[in-house]
């Protein structure tokens, strides 16, 4: 690899994901309003918040899929929006992403989905690729589903297959968008175990976007609480829970008034109308 392509790491102890002063707008609507957030190396950082608080937008910016109005995103020490295409590709190859819907390619088998990533990012010989695919799928407990197509799998298996694909090339950072969305509690808990395993075994830096308090309690080393495009609280889970912000406390105690926001007022309004 030439010096040109090599991403310029500032230092190894810099946080792998570092977002500063991020502002994002859709048209006139401000989705993120000056968000600062860092994911320390080797830990699981959870971005927590209700629906529509900007969590997924934050993740898309952190991956460089969207360009912000203002602010910087540093991924593995590189300023994401000043890189050229080659440098961006090289940074992205060190990151794994688990999309909310899994985003497996439906025309390929589970094995080929994983193999695609490996073939694209290395020159490994085919027999080694096949071994590697089966190794990754065994890690998520899907060794017997190598030749199955995504549509033949259940929702939980699809998520696990997508996770195997995300980890195919030993990424340094793994980002997960709502990993437990649409899964039953037992499968969701299994997925949480898997993330903890990855952290313990490979020292992976993991960023998880979620609104599931159960899994936050279990996996989070650090929590960043988002509400209406701002960071309300961040720190360990205990620090966040004891935050002075009423909204944060409501979220943790599941008081519907603040957490459900407009939904609650609509409910009362419609009941008022019926009387």
């Amino acid at each position: 690899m030439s010096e040109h392509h090599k991403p310029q790491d500032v230092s190894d102890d810099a946080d792998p994901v570092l977002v500063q002063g991020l502002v994002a707008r859709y048209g006139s609507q401000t989705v993120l309003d000056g968000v600062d957030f860092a994911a320390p190396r080797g830990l699981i950082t959870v971005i927590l918040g209700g629906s529509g608080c900007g969590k997924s937008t934050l993740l898309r910016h952190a991956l460089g899929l969207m360009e912000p109005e203002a602010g910087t995103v540093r991924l593995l020490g590189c300023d994401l929006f000043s890189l050229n295409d080659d440098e961006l590709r090289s940074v992205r190859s060190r990151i794994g992403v688990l999309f909310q819907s899994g985003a497996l390619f439906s025309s390929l088998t589970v094995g080929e989905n994983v193999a695609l990533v490996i073939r694209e990012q290395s020159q490994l010989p085919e027999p080694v690729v096949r071994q590697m695919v089966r190794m990754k799928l065994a890690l998520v407990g899907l060794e017997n589903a190598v030749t199955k197509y995504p549509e033949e799998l259940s929702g939980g298996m699809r998520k696990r297959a997508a996770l195997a694909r995300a980890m195919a090339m030993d990424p340094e950072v793994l980002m997960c968008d709502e990993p437990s969305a649409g899964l039953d509690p037992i499968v969701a808990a299994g997925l949480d175990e898997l993330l903890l395993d990855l952290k313990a075994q490979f020292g992976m830096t993991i960023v998880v976007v979620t609104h599931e308090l159960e899994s936050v309690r279990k996996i989070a080393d650090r929590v960043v609480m988002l509400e209406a495009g701002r960071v309300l609280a961040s720190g360990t889970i205990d620090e966040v829970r004891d935050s002075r912000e009423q909204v944060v406390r409501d979220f943790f105690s599941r008081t519907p008034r603040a957490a459900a926001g407009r939904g609650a007022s609509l409910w009362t309004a419609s009941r008022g109308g019926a009387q």
Partner: protein
Amino acid sequence: MPVVRFEGALNRHTVPQAYKTVGTLLSGKGPAVFDLSGVQDFDSAAAAFLGHCFMRLGSGPQGLHLANLPSAVAHSLEGAAWDYRVDTPLVVEPQSPFVESVGSEAAAFGQQVYYFVFLLSELFFAAVIAPFRGRLPRLGPFLEQLSRIGAGSAPIVLLVALLVGLTTALQAAYQLRQFGANIYIADLVGISMMRELGPLMAAILVAGRSGAAITAEIGTMKVNEELDALRLLGLSPIEYLGVPRVLAASVTQPLLGVAGAITGIAGGFIIALTVLDLNYSAYYNESLTAVFVADVAYCLYKSAVFGWIIVVVGLYYGFRVEGGAEGVGRATTNSVVMSIFLIIIADCAFSFI
């Protein structure tokens, strides 16, 4: 017993080289030792590589033995829950014996025919018979389809018809000029546009534009379970989605066919006046005597049939989509190819009648 010593990094960048080297060193089976004491960097590509070597050379005393495993490497391999003693393919092509495949093909064909007949009968019932029983088609979707299938296609249909008219007149002129029979270009362009090229060009363009859109739209709805949602609301998808499109195409396709034919004749007229210096009123009169009302009627009902082919084929492939994004793409391609094919077959049949 050969001993292979590894030094430095063993990772995704160096494994391809290591694979080649080991492949030439250890062509046969038999015991071998990998000395890994010098390995510093180790990733899952390396683990997969060692797994592959185990698969080839076997484990145990007569197979591969790993010596001086660094603890990090040992840790990676211990976690290996996969069975590296076998090599399995990533795709398995379904194989079925000859008789069975003939049978399943035939069954699939039978199902297609059955569904096609079912679709036709449902459409016929909902569009033709139900209105007499007081169940009128929905006006809103019908008007929307009128504008999408008809008005939306008009610009491209008219432009292409104009160009075809110009071209036909010019090509004919090269031949007819030799006999001093240039005035008959009016007959030739008039009849060919009205009876053949106008309806055919309009139909092929609409098949590519609206036929594909119908399949893609309905196919996507099926993939998203929207058709099931309709059914649970008590709405028949064929009635709700199909009938407005069939009715709209029955109106717009004849209009597009005739409009295309007239535009093509106008194209011929332009060539006659500008390039060929024919007399304005002579050409006009010749055109009027050449094209009968019967030709216009022929153009109208032929176009209507083409319109039905486009919509029915589009609906058929849309409702039968299976298998996500790829299925929608495949169905859309098939829909366009099939409707153009059927349009040309129908065109041949019309010419014989």
